[in-house]
């Protein structure tokens, strides 16, 4: 990329403060046209803030942004959209009660004297869906489709508005491995079409696979930039994390002789809308072990959690939960795990049983406890939880749930959206809890994570555990063995014969 070509976007000395907290400090770099440019950094490094300034959601305190050489200052996202910039947010901006079609056209409706024209525009949108293989149906209601499909609806909205510069804010954090592959294909297709893509992420493999150039942010500053061809992952990781002592997983795994069975499913079946979501599910979780369930999302994982919580009843077979106290980190942290309008302290206190009255001091103590232990980055202790970034919210929930000291923990995507440092810390806590004779069920689409943490693994496919592995099966002597195992488990996850 020679320097005499005008870049698609140029950031010049961008600074943004929230009170005393500096989110962006003097950031300058440019994004070349028709490239995939990754911005990487931990939770709270300032990536999202920078993009929100570009997109007109925040205004920067100082500095300027140039689009194709012209200085711009968007006062609202609308002005950014008009300049053919589109952003895929971490939290979707969809109207749950609307159909896919209605969500896509809202704001730029095709109309004949006020009446919405559905035939021609329907065909046009369908063409976009087919071209980028999004696999959506125009008449499906948003509340009925999966998270990955919702994300595709957001992408479709950008395409419908002819966005040339696309910003993706941690797009893969809600996707399973198979869906991530699909997503990569879509991104590459965008590049082939001449679009410019900014990818915000904290996953190293995405950078390796997709990007042309990488910018690293740490604590609000741009600390490192490199072309993908000269990329050294070790250097990159160091730049992302900075000088922090690495957290090691405890190697020792305590052995317990008479484990209690905490969860027992036996040939359980659960129907939803006449579809068998659990179809002959059997597995047990004992105390003093981590049981990992891996599989492609939508194969019954959420139904397992719902059955354990009692929000859905199994129709046949058996389910026994032999403890009354269950800690849960749910899949949808905003919807199920917390009250987003409450502060950190209030959310923690909410889960406690033995208290009658409380005061501000108690809330503050609760909050500080988790904030310091889990390195939660926030500008204000009294701010609502929704103002924290996704990864920080996750840390709060995880911290609260492990702090309860319950015999059984059910963790769904325990580190989704969480940065490397905090993930390592969460892993450490999980193993420590296991070594205290707790029973832990992990449901995750991150296979590496499941392998790292589990004593036993069950592969779920179409509501059934199709394969089970013990620790000896996935303790590898060499890389080749690991590859072989990964291939096998990958096949099991998509229902191919092993």
């Amino acid at each position, binding site marked *: 990329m020679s320097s005499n070509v005008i870049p698609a976007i140029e950031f010049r000395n961008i600074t943004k403060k929230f009170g005393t907290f500096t989110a962006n400090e003097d950031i300058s770099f440019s994004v070349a046209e028709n490239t995939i440019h990754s911005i990487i950094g931990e939770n709270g490094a300032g990536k999202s803030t920078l993009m929100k300034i570009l997109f007109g959601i925040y205004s920067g305190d100082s500095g300027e942004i140039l689009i194709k050489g012209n200085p711009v200052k968007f006062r609202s*996202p*609308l002005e950014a*959209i008009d300049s053919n910039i589109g952003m895929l947010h971490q939290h979707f*901006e*969809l*109207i*749950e*009660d*609307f159909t896919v079609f*209605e969500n896509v*056209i*809202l*704001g*730029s*409706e095709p*109309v004949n004297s*006020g*009446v*919405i024209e559905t035939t021609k525009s329907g065909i046009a949108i369908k063409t976009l869906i087919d071209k980028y293989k999004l696999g959506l149906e125009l008449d499906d209601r948003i509340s009925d489709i999966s998270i990955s499909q919702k994300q595709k609806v957001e992408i479709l*909205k950008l395409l419908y508005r002819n966005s040339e510069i696309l910003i993706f804010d941690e797009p893969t954090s809600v996707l399973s491995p198979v869906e991530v592959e699909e997503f990569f294909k879509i991104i590459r297709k965008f590049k082939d079409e001449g679009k410019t893509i900014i990818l915000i992420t904290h996953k190293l493999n995405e950078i390796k696979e997709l990007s042309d150039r990488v910018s690293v942010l740490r604590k609000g500053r741009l600390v490192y930039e490199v072309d993908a061809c000269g990329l050294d992952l070790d250097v990159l990781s160091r730049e992302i994390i900075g000088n922090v002592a690495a957290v090691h997983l405890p190697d020792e795994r305590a052995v317990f002789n008479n484990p209690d069975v905490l969860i027992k499913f036996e040939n359980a079946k659960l129907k939803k809308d006449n579809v068998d979501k659990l179809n002959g599910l059997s597995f047990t979780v004992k105390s003093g072990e981590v049981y990992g369930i891996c599989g492609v999302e939508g194969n019954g994982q959420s139904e397992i959690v719902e059955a354990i919580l009692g929000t859905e009843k199994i129709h046949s077979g058996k389910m026994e939960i032999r403890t009354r106290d269950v800690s849960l980190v749910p899949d949808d942290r905003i919807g199920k795990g917390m009250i987003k309008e409450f502060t950190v302290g209030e959310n923690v206190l909410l889960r406690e049983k033995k208290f009658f009255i409380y005061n501000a001091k108690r809330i503050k103590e609760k909050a500080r406890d988790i904030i310091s232990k889990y390195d939660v980055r926030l500008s204000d202790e009294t701010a609502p939880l929704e103002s924290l970034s996704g990864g920080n919210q996750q840390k709060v929930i995880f911290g609260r749930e492990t702090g309860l000291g319950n015999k059984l923990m059910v963790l769904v995507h325990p580190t989704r959206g969480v940065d490397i440092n905090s993930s390592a810390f969460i892993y450490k806590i999980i193993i420590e809890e296991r070594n205290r004779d707790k029973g832990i069920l992990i449901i995750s689409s991150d296979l590496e994570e499941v392998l790292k943490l589990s004593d036993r693994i069950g592969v779920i496919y179409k509501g059934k555990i199709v394969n089970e592995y013990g620790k000896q099966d996935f303790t590898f002597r060499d890389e080749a063995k690991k590859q072989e195992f990964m291939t096998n488990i990958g096949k099991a996850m998509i229902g191919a014969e092993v």
Partner: protein
Amino acid sequence: MIESILSLTFLAQVLRMFTPYYLGASAANFSERGGVINIAIEGFMIISAFSYAFFTITFGNPFVSLLLTIIVSLLFSLLYALLTIKLKINQIVTGVGFNLLMAGTAKFLIMFFYQSSSNTPNFQPLPGLPFISDIPVIGKAAGDYIIVFGFILIFISQFVLFRTRFGLRLRSVGENPEAAETLGVGVRVYKLYGVLVCGVLSSLGGIWLASNQGSFSDGMIAGRGYIAIAAMIIGKWKPVNIFFACLMFAFFEGLEITLQITGSFLPSQIVQMLPYVITVLVLIGFIGKTRPPAADGVPY
């Protein structure tokens, strides 16, 4: 008794009961689809019924009065919008305030203009549609402009809400204003539109009641504005369902009146309870979960 229910007189009765309910319920629906709760339907009907009586008595022309009354209602709607949308005052509190204000204003003005504590002088009701009005028994109801409009309103509401840009944007604002705004929908403007449409429709409800009675009297709206809101909720904010909910209310109220006239073995208190008891039973048994627009009542 059965003969009296199956008669055309009964049908005409139900049509008359149905109209103010459906106008009020549709009014509330347009406001709530845009995310603004308006429990002042009752108040809007009261002030419109009085205004219509006042203008007709003063100017004589029923159609001019109709227009002027709608303007009065629009002015009150603007005030309601100013308080709830612009100043973000709690919508329930504002609604309660409007109900009290409008009932009190009407009562005061009857006293002021007509030196009566309870009612205005009589006036000529709105003329009916030509020809149809002359049909015996049913003609007076079937030939009534506003009753006919009430029926057409089912299709208008359905079309406007689900086939036009206006409807799509109005609903988006009631469901998720943040998302709507990022897509360039003027959130407050659409909320305002919803409140204005609400003002016009509830006004027609009040006008019809006054015209039908040929006068305005204190207490004549008799809670119909609240029943209309209940019908909207039972109808799950959908025009066609609201239609059936209103029809149900109208049917049982018609039944109550018929039973009272013809006499039945049931004590009259029990008969009067009928519409409400049935409503509660329907709510428990058949309606299932109702889901309001997601951002209903939330100031933006």
